[in-house]
């Protein structure tokens, strides 16, 4: 048929506002805490993590830079040191002739040199045949011939020679520095031995912390100075990065559960590799301290945020719970007042129905008094009086029926599920509505199918039915029409239609009729709560409330209530009192429909 319909579509606010139920406080609390913690901690941890990462990279660069700068400087320092020693010897060789040196000058000069620094352990002069002419030192090396020694051969075509660490005749690791002096057409060599301890000390002068040290390797990876932490001079170091390269390089090596940082640079024309080594743990100790501080700050922040989140959400939940309680209280009051409004609307109509018999009783009373006041009441008058009294009785009975129906309605106030005969309840509601609708030319058509007993909230169903019936009567006021009440057993449960042939609902109103406080009735007539409350109540019963309407033709409200599966038998749809007209109670006027 229609036209404009609204079916099973929840209205914007009705359900929630009128009978909506709040979420559990504990669940809400948990959800709030979770959300707050997530919102606060995730950025906090991200910032912490990013800061740490950035700082780590920065620190790593800084440590590497520092090591590289350090080893570059140190190489320059060692080179300058050796250069100084060489210059020193060259100066002696230039200043004195072989003759002078052999006759005591060497002894004098060497004692000065030793006094000054303790750099040299011995000194000697070798002629161009490799013979040891003079030797001052702790070993017995006089008369040795060095013609076959590497350093001697190297000096044939150069002026200065600095050796690698070697054992030589003395069988002790040592370095020598030799300078060649031409005298006439012959040459002689001034050769000094560097104290290994002193030179090692020079090389190791870059101690950093407790694990940072420097040492020298030759191109084969043999120790040229004695490393502090393990390793012997002239023994292989096992250092893996011996390939020739320009400049300074850094490596990270994991060894026996420890990570070591190496930085190296080639020097002395690629004969020596100066290596700086430090344990990573130590090198990164400041970073670790910073990290601990960061973790401590983050942890403190996490604890603070969690505490705030906990306290805040507890307060919030308490606040929400309080406002939920007051809303529930408000809902209860709203429900009660809307019920009162519905009852009030009905009561105004029913009052008329009681006033009518009271009016009759009043006139009959006057008539009886009239008859009794007549000068000589005869048998006929007495019969008339008796008849009037009987009629008064009829009217009293009529009043009693109305008040009885009303009482039955108002007594059903308990909001409890109970087995309910829906049809009987509807008939009762229709009877009350009939009292109210008398004189409005409304025909009540009951089309009730047999229904199984249903588990319902009778009081609430009653309120819904009363609202729908009241609305239907209002829609047909003065104009009259037919109000059809239909029940059917359907697949999903029980369907109740309340259909009128009244004014209908304008299309622009239909989507709003279930909203609270929406009313199209004149001011003072409707509260705008009836349908909103109905909607909430039907939802509470697990059902749906739909409406179809066409303006000027009528409206049909359809109520669907769930029925237990066992109560949905394959029954013959036998209409009970099909199209039965209402108005069989207390109606003495046969002309009434």
């Amino acid at each position, binding site marked *: 048929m229609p036209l404009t319909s609204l079916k099973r579509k929840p209205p914007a606010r009705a359900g929630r506002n009128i009978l909506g139920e709040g979420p559990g406080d504990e669940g809400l609390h948990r959800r709030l805490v979770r959300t707050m913690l997530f919102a606060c901690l995730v950025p906090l941890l991200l910032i912490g993590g990013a800061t740490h990462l950035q700082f780590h990279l920065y620190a790593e660069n800084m440590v590497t830079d520092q090591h590289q700068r350090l080893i570059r400087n140190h190489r320059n320092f060692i080179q300058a040191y050796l250069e100084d020693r060489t210059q020193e010897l060259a100066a002696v060789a230039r200043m004195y002739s072989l003759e002078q040196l052999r006759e005591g000058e060497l002894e004098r000069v060497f004692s000065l040199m030793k006094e000054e620094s303790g750099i040299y352990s011995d000194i000697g002069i070798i002629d161009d045949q490799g013979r040891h002419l003079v030797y001052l030192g702790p070993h017995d090396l006089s008369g040795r011939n060095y013609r076959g020694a590497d350093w001697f051969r190297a000096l044939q075509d150069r002026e200065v020679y600095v050796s690698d660490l070697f054992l030589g005749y003395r069988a002790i690791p040592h370095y020598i520095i030799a300078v060649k002096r031409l005298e006439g057409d012959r040459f002689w060599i001034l050769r000094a031995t560097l104290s290994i301890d002193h030179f090692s000390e020079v090389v190791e002068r870059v101690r950093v912390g407790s694990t940072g040290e420097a040492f020298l390797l030759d191109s084969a990876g043999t120790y040229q100075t004695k490393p502090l932490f393990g390793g012997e001079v002239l023994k292989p170091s096992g250092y893996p990065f011996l390939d020739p390269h320009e400049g300074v390089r850094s490596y990270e090596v994991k060894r026996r559960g420890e990570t070591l940082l190496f930085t190296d640079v080639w020097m002395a024309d690629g004969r020596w590799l100066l290596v700086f080594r430090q344990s990573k743990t130590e090198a990164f100790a400041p970073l670790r301290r910073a990290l601990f501080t960061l973790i401590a700050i983050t942890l403190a922040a996490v604890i603070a945020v969690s505490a705030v989140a906990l306290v805040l959400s507890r307060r919030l939940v308490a606040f929400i719970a309080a406002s939920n309680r007051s809303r529930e209280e408000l809902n209860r009051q709203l429900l009660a007042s809307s019920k009162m409004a519905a009852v009030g609307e009905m009561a105004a109509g029913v009052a008329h129905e009681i006033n*009518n018999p*009271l*009016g009759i009783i*009043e*006139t009959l009373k006057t008539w009886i008094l009239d008859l009794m006041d007549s000068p000589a009441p005869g048998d006929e008058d007495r019969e008339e009086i008796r008849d009037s009294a009987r009629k008064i009785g*009829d009217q009293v009975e009529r009043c009693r029926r109305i008040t009885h129906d009303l009482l039955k309605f108002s007594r059903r106030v308990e909001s409890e599920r109970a087995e309910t005969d829906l049809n009987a309840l509807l008939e009762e509601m229709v009877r009350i509505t009939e009292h109210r609708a008398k004189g409005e030319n409304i025909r009540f058509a009951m089309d009730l199918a047999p229904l199984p007993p249903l588990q319902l909230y009778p009081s609430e169903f009653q309120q819904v039915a009363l609202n729908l019936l009241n609305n239907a009567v209002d829609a047909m006021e003065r104009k009259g029409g037919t109000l059809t009440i239909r029940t059917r057993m359907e697949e999903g449960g029980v369907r109740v239609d309340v259909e009128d042939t009244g004014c209908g609902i304008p299309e622009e109103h239909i989507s709003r009729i279930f909203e609270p406080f929406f009313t199209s009735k004149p001011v003072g007539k409707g509260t705008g709560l009836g349908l909103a409350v109905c909607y909430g109540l039907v939802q509470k019963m697990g059902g749906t409330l739909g409406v179809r309407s066409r303006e000027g033709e009528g409206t049909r409200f359809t109520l669907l209530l769930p029925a237990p599966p066992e109560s949905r038998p394959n029954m013959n749809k036998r209409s009970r009192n099909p199209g039965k007209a209402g108005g069989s109670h207390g109606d003495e006027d046969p*002309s*009434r429909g």
Partner: protein
Amino acid sequence: MATKILLVDDEREFRETLAKLLDRRDYDVLVAGDGSQALGLFLQGDVEAVILDMKMPGLHGIETLREIKRLDPAAEVIILTGHLVKSTEQEGLRLGAFAYLTKPCSFQELLETIEAALRRRRARMSGDHEPRSGAS
């Protein structure tokens, strides 16, 4: 000639008993069970006062009142109803009803109201007629 009163009410018991009471007080009472019937009787003429119920099947009390006033603006109409609705009362009085009484109303009060209505009608009638007779 007895004063002719039209009594309109859908409650048979009420209108019959009230008719008997008024009859004993020498009114000439016509009774109607609904608005259309009432208009039919009113059209027969000479009705001086109408006692009118509001809620009735068929033509509603207010419509009946409007129709009566259209036919005879001088007709005095007393509304007597169990219908306690302010808006109906206001509309009734605005349409020119003499009074709005609610059931149950004592017979004495009704009688006094009828008499008052008749006095006003007669006063108005004579007021209407005298200048005319004076002119003739």
